[in-house]
């Protein structure tokens, strides 16, 4: 990596101040993307602002929502009895990210701020209609994701927590890239207070997106069979050495159906 400054503020205000006015400063959450990128010299920040001492971890579950602090790591979400009870699909998703090392370092806030097109969490946030809270506002999931590695966050804006409405039914199924084990096609289906929503990660050129045709079919009847005949065009799908756009489009159909089956 290149040399960079490093600061570990102990208040959100200090963190925001450290990031303010410096486009080349980088916030460090769990570092599961940023650190490898730095090691490969693909990024040269002026300074790294470590968010680990801001008190942003923790999980609060009420009757109708699950709120997860931005710095809560995936292993904590996966192991949380409260999350498992309220939104088991979310706990299962967290437990399937990366490997045990990644899950013990990687955070929900980091994943969402980065918005990797193959990350798992964006699909849950979008399908459940979660709300992302930052140091200055609340952003609805539908407004938040704006294309791969692009979000509604302003420069220097820090996610503090994410709040998920508890759905009646939900499931996440991931078809992994055989090499990287990231989502090649990941589908989160939810039937909850925000309606029937289906979010697809890994497949689209623009990052996570809603599968509206599947949503329409499932709104009529929540069953795998209702997805028969529902397809998604290959245009706009990613294509790489592991999967062409038509194959990804096909997998979106298969995985969506399996997710509905899993959701029951």
């Amino acid at each position, binding site marked *: 990596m290149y040399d960079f400054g490093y600061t570990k503020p102990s208040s959100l205000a200090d963190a925001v101040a450290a990031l303010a006015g410096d486009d080349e400063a980088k916030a460090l959450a769990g570092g599961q993307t940023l650190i490898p990128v730095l090691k490969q010299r693909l990024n040269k920040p002026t300074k790294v602002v470590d968010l680990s001492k801001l008190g942003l971890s923790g999980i609060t579950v009420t009757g109708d929502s699950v709120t997860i602090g931005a710095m809560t790591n995936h292993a904590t979400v996966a192991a949380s009895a409260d999350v498992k009870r309220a939104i088991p699909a979310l706990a299962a998703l967290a437990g399937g990210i990366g490997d045990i090392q990644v899950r013990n370092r990687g955070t929900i806030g980091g994943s969402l701020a980065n918005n990797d097109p193959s990350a798992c969490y964006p699909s849950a946030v979008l399908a459940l209609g979660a709300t992302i809270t930052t140091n200055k506002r609340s952003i609805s999931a539908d407004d938040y994701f704006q294309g791969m590695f692009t979000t509604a966050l302003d420069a220097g804006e820090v996610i503090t927590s994410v709040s998920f409405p508890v759905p009646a039914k939900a499931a996440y199924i991931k078809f992994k890239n055989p090499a990287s084990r990231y989502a090649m096609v990941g589908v989160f289906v939810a039937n909850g207070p925000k309606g029937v929503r289906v979010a697809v990660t890994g497949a689209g050129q623009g990052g996570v997106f809603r599968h509206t045709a599947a949503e329409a079919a499932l709104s009529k009847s929540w069953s795998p069979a209702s997805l028969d005949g529902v397809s998604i065009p290959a245009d706009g799908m990613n294509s790489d050495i592991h*999967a062409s756009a038509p194959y990804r489009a096909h997998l979106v159909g298969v995985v969506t159906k399996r997710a509905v089956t899993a959701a029951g």
Partner: protein
Amino acid sequence: MNAPFEGIGASVRRKEDLRFISGRGNYTDDINRPNQTYAVFRRSDRPHANIVSIDTSAAKSAPGVVAVYTAEDLAAIGGLPCGWQIHSKDGSPMAEPKHPVLAEGKVRHVGDPIAVVIAETKQQARDAAELIEIDLKDLPATATVTDALKSGAAQIHDNAPGNVCYDWHIGDKEATEAAFAKAAKIVKLDLENNRLVPNAMEPRVAIGDYDRHTSDYTLFTTSQNPHVIRLLMGAFVLGLPEHKLRVVAPDVGGGFGSKIYHYAEEATVTWAAGKLGRPVKWTADRTESFMSDAHGRDHVSTAEMALDAQGNFLALRVNTLANMGAYLSTFAPAVPTYLYATLLAGTYRTPVIYAEVKAVFTNTVPVDAYRGAGRPEATFLLERLVDTICHDTGFDPVAIRLQNFIPKDAFPYQTPVALQYDSGDYFTTMEVAMKNADYAGFPARKAAAAAKGKLRGIGISTYLEACGIAPSAVVGSLGARAGLYEVANIRVHPTGSVSVFTGTHSHGQGHETTLAQLVTSQLGVPFSQVEIVHGDTNRIPFGMGTYGSRSLAVGGTAMVKAMDKIIAKGKKIAAHLLEASVDDIEFADGSFKVAGTDRAKSLSEIALTAYVPHNYPITEIEPGLDETAFYDPANFTFPGGCHVCEVEIDPETGVTSIVNFTAVDDVGRVINPMIVEGQVQGGVAQGIGQALLEHAVYDSNAQLLSGSFMDYTMPRADNLTNISVATENTLCTHNPLGVKGCGEVGAIGSPPAVMNAVISALKDYGVRHMNMPASPEKIWGIINAGRKAAE
């Protein structure tokens, strides 16, 4: 209490594992020398380009930089030598373009080293390497053999017209054509053997060191054969005599062939250490490994079998294009010729065979031997061809193999492609494999899978491989520039413990255990009293290293020969002490005994006498008990066997799961069954990797797309299943241990078994053949097309 049996045949736990699993190994990167500097290479990011200019001035003045070198600075040293010379059909020697240590005038593949920066820290070297300004003028590039052979393709080397390295053949062309002319049926198959990246767990590392007072050089390197590196680098690159160059290969974390070869980085750090008078260390990062470690496989072939009406193989005709990459790596020319085409008889009594092999330069990383080296390619071709014959003709895959196997009583068996097999029994390995795999129960399992919506398939492969390389006179006549004997020095210490200095090298195989078991069996010395020393040219007399499953068959036999000398000398000492005739002394279980009496001397008593020769036949023999043997094998060894694979395919996604894998191998005498099982399982895992997952993909501009683990799919635990391993051994007839070798069999036998299973599972979708890897997308494509065709 009796000591546990720790000789030949015991599953002794690996003594090296304690240090490996507790983080106490001593790998090259663990070594640091006083006043050490760090080297970072600046490599080409272009596949083929002329070097217009290189400006190192900014790099040279960067903080901490000790030196920056380019090819100009290395003008006085030689290129990296090739260890094998093949002659083309017309008798002309292969094109052997120079492989410069640093690129001269031109870069020829992504990863080709252009310059090296040596600095006080690795970070400083990296920073400075980025400051080197290199002006490259792109040339058209080719990654595949078919593209490189097209007329008008870019010329990669001036002295390799048409990018051809050699155009070689073996076998009887006329007899083969005559057999084809009268065949009842000819089955033809086009197939590719996918290119692989070896990916040893430990990346390559090299440290050059120089003592200005003695003018001695030392190279610490991740090598499978330190003496070979000393020879190649000392004699051909740097011009250093052996006594001034020490090469140490300490613990090495896997090689699979990729650490046989002499690499540019080794020569650079050694040369630079002398130039600077300071140690120079280079450690590859994984990205660098992908673009600089020799790759494996990459063949494009056409195979044709002529058959009579009863399904007897009459003749085999093969045409293969082999990718050499941008330069010739150390062993590269031998792989598609003498390690491949000579294996094309396989387990079958095909009476005539003719094979043509064209080796081709491309703008890719050099290709060389990778676990199995040529033999997996031959086996894949043959075993896919046999199943394709069944597909086309309706013959049964089991019956046609049994019908064409070399009969049990035909050994020694002379093949039509040079090799003479000494022993084998392909009937028994297949019979046992089918039994262990419950082949007969497959239809029921297929039906049960179908009920769950899964496509189940079963595939068989039988294989024959030649290893234990190799008789020096034979390989010399085939173009090898070195001999392939092995060396062992057995030192019985005064109190009876033993050090073995072996020219083989262990980089995961467990030699410190297996070779010690040989000593325990032959000399009766307790296992705990035996030390195996390897990997240091200053400690070991000489050696050719470890590859081609040769360590036991050749290195182990050298040990046996040296121990024979120890016993012969011990008998003379014992005869003196026991006042008996030498002819009356018998040696067994560590004891020299006068035949028919209870008068005996232990080996340790003999050893002590040899080193404290107060009462000693000093006029007849020298003191000491320390013997060396060089052993040159009489022939290759010929392991063989049968692998059975069962897969389930999810027709919705195209994902293949290996549900059963059964290997029954003939590896000759087994020294340590646990280690053999591990070697076979590891080889099978790599073979499954080749069949289903691994592929080094270049785009049409010769950029490596699968250049990291994000895109290159290594097999992981969840891609595998429990691998059932058994052996049904026939003994090698020409070495005293009867051993054949087990290091490569898993990687040789398994890929066609997996592919035959996949194709069997897809039988209803009209597939005749598919190339590896059988990725989910490829399979889904077949299923999708098959469905559409059916609709």
